[in-house]
Each structure stands twice: as C-alpha cells, then as structure tokens.
C-alpha cells in the first residue's frame, strides 16, 4: 500500500529532472518567435527554468496543439497544486510549489496573508478594520509589501448576522475573502452575499463534508479541508472530495499554537515532503497555517499573545504554509512577516542585486564626495534613499559583490581591496573628480589601510549605517587636506 496514486506508467518527474529536450519534443518546433525567443529550444529552456509560462507560446493554445498542451501541462504541473481565490486584480494564488527547499529551484506564489474580522463587530468597527488591513504597507527595496486577504469568522453562529457581515465587507473592499464557519447553513448565508467572487470556504470536516462539498460546487469556490492532526483522515477527506468533483482544495491539519506547535510543524513538513518527494497526490495541495489560533489560549496579556502570534506565523511560513490567517494588526507583528515572505520567495538562483556602476546624486562637481557600496538591492536602496532624503550632491560607486550586503560581502571577500581597486580603475573615477578621496562604508573599515596602499586613494571610513551620512559629511567633507 502506498500513499497516493503515483502514476504507474511513468513516475512523475520533479522539475529538476525535466530537461529542455523533454519540453521541446512537445512544442510546435516551428521557431515562429511569437514568444519573442529566438527559437523553440530557447523557449523550452526558459520554460523549464520557470522564467516563462505555457501561455507565452500562442500557437500551443490553438486546436492543432491541444494534445501537446495537455501533455505539457501534465509534465510541468507542480506537485503542489496552485489554487486561486477571490477575483480581479487582487485575487490570490496559493501553492503551486515545485520543490521542498527553495535552493532546489525556487518557491512560487508567496504566502498569502489574511487578517480576520468577525460577525460580532459593529458596522463601523468592521469597516475601519478592513480599511486598516487594506492600508497596511511597507516600502522595501522599492516594492510595496502588503496584506492580501480577509478572513471573515462567524462567531454568532447566526446565518443572518454572518451574511450581513459578508455583505458589508464585500461592499468595502475588493480584497479576496476566506469565509470561516463550520455550520453549512451559516456558510451558505455568507456565500450568498459574495456574488461570484470565489471566496475560499473554511472548512470541510469529517462531520460536514457533504453539505460543504455541495456549497463549494454550487458556488465554484475552493474549499479548505480541516482535520485535527490525523493525516489519514485528511487524505480520506481529500480523496472523497475529489470523488465529488472538487479539486481546488487547501489542507489544514490544524494549527496547535502552544505545546502542540511541534506536532503542527512536523505535520506540515510531512505533508509537503510527501507531495514533493513521493508525488502523493492527496497531499498535493496548498497548506493553511493559522497563527490566529494562539488567541484561543488562556493567556490574557495582549502583548504576549501578539508576540507568540508573530513567532508562530514566521515558523509556519518557513515550514511550508501557503496561506496564513493572522489576528494582530500591529506593525511590529506584520512587518517581519512581510519582509520574511519577500525574502523566502526570492529566486535563490539570482541574487537580489542592482547593476554595478557609478550613480550620480544631486548636482555633484569635481570636488564632490565619492562614496562606495555593494550591489545588494537592499543595501543600495537604503543608501540611495538616505542620500536623496538628505539632498546630498555626490557620486556613489556600486561594486558587484554578488548581491551581498556590505557586512557579508566583506566577510565573504566579495567586497575586498581588489574589488575596490578595480572598480576605481574600471569606472574611471579619476575623471569624475579633482581629488583622490574615497569614503568606504563603516562596516568595511577593515579594508581601509590596504586599500589606501593598493589604490593610491585616501580612504575615509564612513558611518556604519548610511543614515549617518549627512552628519558624517558635514563633519568630514571637504577633508582637511583637500
């Protein structure tokens, strides 16, 4: 007896085992360039690398290639299905994972973060909370990080109250919803107010799966499958719901926030491992984590609960949760989640970097300061924003450090005496200014002496954090000798 129905005729290949040739064989092979690639082989290569998608090849979507498209779909399908809920520009896609570890390929579809509201909230409170959820953003490396969805909980157990709440939220925002009620009658009242916007239904359980399956079919909505641990029951429910014709499912083996956290993380890990390593189809669905569950504990201190929710959310995200439901709306709880999500989902095959070269700020002249930093995107954008905020006139040399920050690049010797010396030479910094003084980051202080010897430039050690640049320049520029 094995877990899942592994395709017997041909074992499914992991994305890492698929070669461009496997894909090429199924393409039109006409080299028509409609995809803007030079030929079908080039398209195949980028498809396997996850840089292009099947829809980028228009001919494949004609009747002639129907069979090939179906086969390509099977070949390239991720072992974890991608499930979409909501509609319009803000719709959320969760899952769609190809690998267990990001270094094996890259993760797709960053964890969706939903914040709860409930049906006991007064209208005004409800609208205010929804607005807060919509407005929470953080600008990080030039991107706006934001929250993605709203989980509406039925506390009252009253269908009318739930329906009314869904109606209000639906009239207030176009963020996607997760409707949370275990009573099918309450769920139906909520769904009736959602007008084709495909909310995610929480949840089908061992007790209510029949009516919940009917609702999911009637409203064409994806469905969460919930059990208290018990992976065998979870698989049984998935198998049964598949037999009902439902394939847009999300798995929730239950989040235990206190001493059960171990069980929760191990269960999520076991499910995702079975999906990615054994292609267990019954486990091949997105996973839900519920940090909000910490709020059901006996703890009464709000700060302690928020603290625990933060820790739990972050660990669930690292351990495969594709969707999180959180209660706290505090910035210190959410900020690290948004940042960690962005980081975890960057493509490890490509460092988050900016191009090396010289940047000019303000109106520098021949006597303006010359600064140097690394090409890690965050480092660069931070320095850039500090220089701009202070209105400094200067040159900034951006060195290729392989996308590492100053501290890591110094430690890893990607930002070194050699790299500084060659940047000065290659970028012909001599021609820009009349002086030979270079300000290096405080975190690279160690390199000052040797760089001075090797480059013939006078090296000044700048502040450790670029927020200190304006003050530093006021005190040290122009240098006494210049």
């Amino acid at each position, binding site marked *: 007896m094995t877990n899942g129905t592994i395709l017997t005729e041909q074992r499914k290949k992991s994305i890492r085992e698929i070669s461009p040739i496997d894909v090429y064989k199924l393409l039109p092979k006409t080299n028509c360039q409609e995809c803007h690639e030079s030929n079908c082989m080039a398209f195949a290569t980028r498809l396997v690398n996850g840089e292009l998608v099947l829809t980028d090849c228009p001919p494949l979507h004609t009747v002639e290639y129907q069979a090939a498209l179906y086969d390509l779909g099977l070949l390239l*399908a991720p072992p974890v299905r991608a499930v979409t809920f909501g509609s319009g520009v803000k719709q*959320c*896609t969760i899952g769609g994972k190809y690998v267990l570890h990001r270094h094996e390929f890259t993760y*797709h579809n960053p964890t969706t973060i939903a914040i709860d509201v409930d049906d006991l909230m007064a209208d005004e409170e409800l609208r205010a909370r929804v607005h807060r959820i919509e407005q929470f953003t953080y600008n990080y490396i030039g991107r706006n990080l934001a929250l993605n969805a709203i989980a509406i909980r039925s506390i009252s157990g009253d269908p009318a109250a739930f329906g009314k709440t869904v109606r209000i939220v639906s009239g207030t925002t176009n963020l996607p919803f997760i409707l949370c009620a275990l009573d099918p009658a309450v769920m139906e009242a909520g769904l009736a107010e959602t007008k084709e916007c495909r909310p995610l239904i929480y949840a089908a359980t061992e007790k209510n*799966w029949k009516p919940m399956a009917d609702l999911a079919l009637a409203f064409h909505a994806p469905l969460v499958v919930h059990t208290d641990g018990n992976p*065998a029951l979870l698989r049984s429910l998935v198998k049964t719901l598949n037999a009902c*014709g439902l394939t847009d499912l999300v798995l929730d083996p239950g989040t235990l926030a206190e*001493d059960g956290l171990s069980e929760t993380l191990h269960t999520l890990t076991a499910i995702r491992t079975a999906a990615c390593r*054994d292609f267990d189809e019954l486990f091949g669905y997105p996973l839900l984590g519920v940090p909000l*569950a910490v709020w059901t504990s006996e703890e009464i201190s709000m700060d302690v609960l928020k603290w625990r929710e933060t820790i739990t959310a972050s660990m669930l995200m690292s351990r495969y949760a594709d969707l999180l439901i959180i209660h706290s709306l505090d910035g210190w709880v959410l900020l690290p989640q948004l940042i960690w999500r962005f980081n975890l989902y960057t493509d490890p095959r490509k460092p988050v970097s900016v191009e090396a070269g010289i940047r000019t700020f303000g109106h520098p002249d021949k006597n303006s300061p010359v600064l140097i930093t690394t090409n890690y995107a965050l480092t660069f954008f931070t320095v850039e924003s500090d220089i701009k905020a202070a209105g400094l006139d200067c040159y900034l040399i951006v060195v290729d450090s392989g996308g590492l920050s100053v501290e890591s690049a110094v430690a890893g010797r990607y930002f070194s005496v050699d790299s500084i010396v060659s940047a000065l030479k290659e970028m012909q910094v001599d021609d820009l200014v009349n002086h030979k003084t270079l300000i290096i980051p405080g975190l690279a202080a160690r390199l000052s002496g040797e760089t001075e010897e090797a480059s013939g430039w006078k090296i000044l050690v700048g502040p450790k954090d670029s927020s200190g640049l304006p003050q530093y320049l006021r005190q040290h520029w122009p240098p006494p000798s210049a």
Partner: protein
Amino acid sequence: MEVSVVVHKKNKDTDRIDGVDALSLAPRILELLQGVQQLELENFSMEIGDLDLFIPFQNLAHSPHPASAPPLLPQKPTDLIRELYHPRVVSYPGHIREVTLGATKADGGSRAHTVTIGGATTPAYTDILIPPVHPPAISLDVFDMKVSLPRVLREHVADVMEDPAEWARMNVKKFGSDIITIHLMSTDPLIRDTTPRQAAETVEEILQAVDVPIIVGGCGDPKKDAAVFTAVAEMAAGERLLLNSVTLDMVEAKTLGTVAKAAHDHGHLLLAFTGLELNNAKELNRRLYEYIPPEQIVMDLTTVALGYGLEYSFTIHERARYAALMGDTELAHPVISAATNAWAAREAWIEMAPEYGPRELRGPIWESLNAVTLLLAGIDLFMMMHPASVLTLKDVIRRLGNKGTDAAIPARDWVGARIS
C-alpha cells in the same frame, strides 16, 4: 481602543493542553519588555497607493494538475472513502559530529558542566519521533569594553558594561545562558590594540566568574587574533574553549597553523568561519583537519539579519545540513549562528512611523525571528543578546522537542472564538 480578551471556550475537554509552563513564560516576557506602551492603532497616517503593485509570482503552468482530471464517477460518494497514511521514514547515510564545549575538573578543566552540541541524524524537526539529540544551546554575549549598542539592548546591560565578569555572571544567573561568549573587541589594532596577555587575563576573569563553558571571540584581524588565541589557549589549557573564529584570511596571513596547533595542544575547539559559501567552508575544514580532530571543529556559515539576507543564511544552512546527512563529512560539523546580527537590520533599532510599532518590540522580535528561522535550518548553538529573545528561543526549543502524544490534540475552535 479598549481591548479585552474573552476566550470563548467550546471545548472544555481541551483544558489539559493549557500547560502551566507554557504560560509561565508570559510574565517574564512582559517584564523584559516593560516600558512598552500599548499601541495606538487608531492613529494612522499613511499613504494609500501602489497597493496593486504587489504581484504574486506567476504559475509556471496553468494546465491541469494530474489530480485535477475530473473524476468520472457517476455519482458523489455517500460515505467517506477511507485512505491510509504511512509516515515516511527516511534514514540518512551521514550524521553530524558531536562537539563538547567546556571541560569539568575530571577532564582537565574547571567548568561545573559541559555542553554537547550536534549529533543530528535527520534534518532539524522533520521527524517528530526524532527530536534533536542535544537541544540547541544558547550563549549570551559579553564584551571586554564598552561598546555601542542599540538603546533597546543597552538598557539590559548598562550596569555591567564596564565589568565583563559581572556581565557574564548576570547572563548566567539572570538570563539562564548555557554558555558565555567573551568578545575581545579591545584587542582590535584599530580600537585599543590591547595585548594578547591582557586578553588572556580577561578570559581568566570570565572563567573565574562563571562555571559554564566559554566561547572566546577575537577582533577579526587574522594576525592579531592568532596571537590572542594562542595566548588564551595556553593560559586556559584544558578548558575546551571555543575559539571564535578561524578563517581563510588566516590561511592568507599564514597564521592558521599557529592557532590550530595551539588549540590542539591545549585542548580547545575551533569555530571555522566562512561567508555563505560552502566550498570555502569545506576548504577551511580540510586545512584544519591537518592539525586537529574533526570533533573539535564547529562551523559558522554566516548569519545575516532578517531583511538583509537572512534567506541566504537559511538556505546555506539547509544545503549544508542535507549535504552532510547525505554523506559529505567535510560539512558534518555542528553549526553556530550569531542571532545578534539581527540588530544590523535598521527595522530592529530605528524609530519608525507609529504604525510599525515601537522599537522596544521590533528589536527583540527581530532577534527572535532570526533565531527561530535558523533553528528550523538546523543551528546547534545560538549567540544572542536580548533577554526576551533568549526566553523566546528557549521556549520554542522546548516546545519543538515535544514528541507529540498518542491521542490527537484537538485544535481549539478559533473560528468561533471571541478574541477582542
């Protein structure tokens, strides 16, 4: 906003999971975060705009998932179709070496107890029946001179900052540190350039002040560190100190051999530090094997702050651990993480707009998240600073070591819970 917590309890029978010790954490965290004001959530002043810029990654394929082929059953099932679940049992050919820090009197040292790290036979927390052989340990930092620290960190240590011995005692007694790290920062030629002899005296003071194992941190200069470590190694012969750290820069400066020999001759351990590059880590280890048994080597693969490249650290540790368990013995060493590096992130210490919360909370949560994230990637020993972060990590380590129970713990009803 007036807030009160009403827990709407439907499952009376779940009371048993309200573990007393799980909750005992609460007052301490509060105490450590004292002075933090409740946030005014109402006072928002932010720009609405660009919300649409958050574009989720595209799916590779939009075509049917194998599981999604519509089942051809004529009618819906009336009963649950029972499926089984067999947990995947994986055994790995390799394992991580065990390394013991500190030595008791019986073993030629003066420590009251030792701390052993490593020994993993599976990736961290992947099999609930195989908790860590040794729970990950925590070392708190002590500096040998007054250093500039973010305000949120400084207030916990302000009274002892000029007395390393007292600082070490406080870390052990008050904050429960398993190990103490003494950073000999003053030896830096660019700072005070104190002599190896003075450095050795500082380490001796720490050894007398506390009876836990000691990590000795240098200044990062390959020549000076070599001289300092050699003097410290001789002075503390037999104590099984962990010398933090040896690097490929020492190979270039031709000082690696001296330090490694001193560690070997006087019975100490070496921390091999490399910058997020496994080939370098392996190369450095290979050079060290010429001088010292592998059981005396711990690795530092570099910890970067959340938001500044933590994902590089996370991934390098996942890769190293898998490679080691698959049989790469050059990577089969316990690993250490300086979670303190989290404070390099601005979000941990600068004053930000009110909607992002007070730095008194952001700082320690940053250090905590750096630590728990790398805990999942397999870290065996953490170097930390903020007491609330230490407490949090200890609590998480304790909870994750829980093998689970035979009976399923029912999740509490969060859907219908009244929580604010």
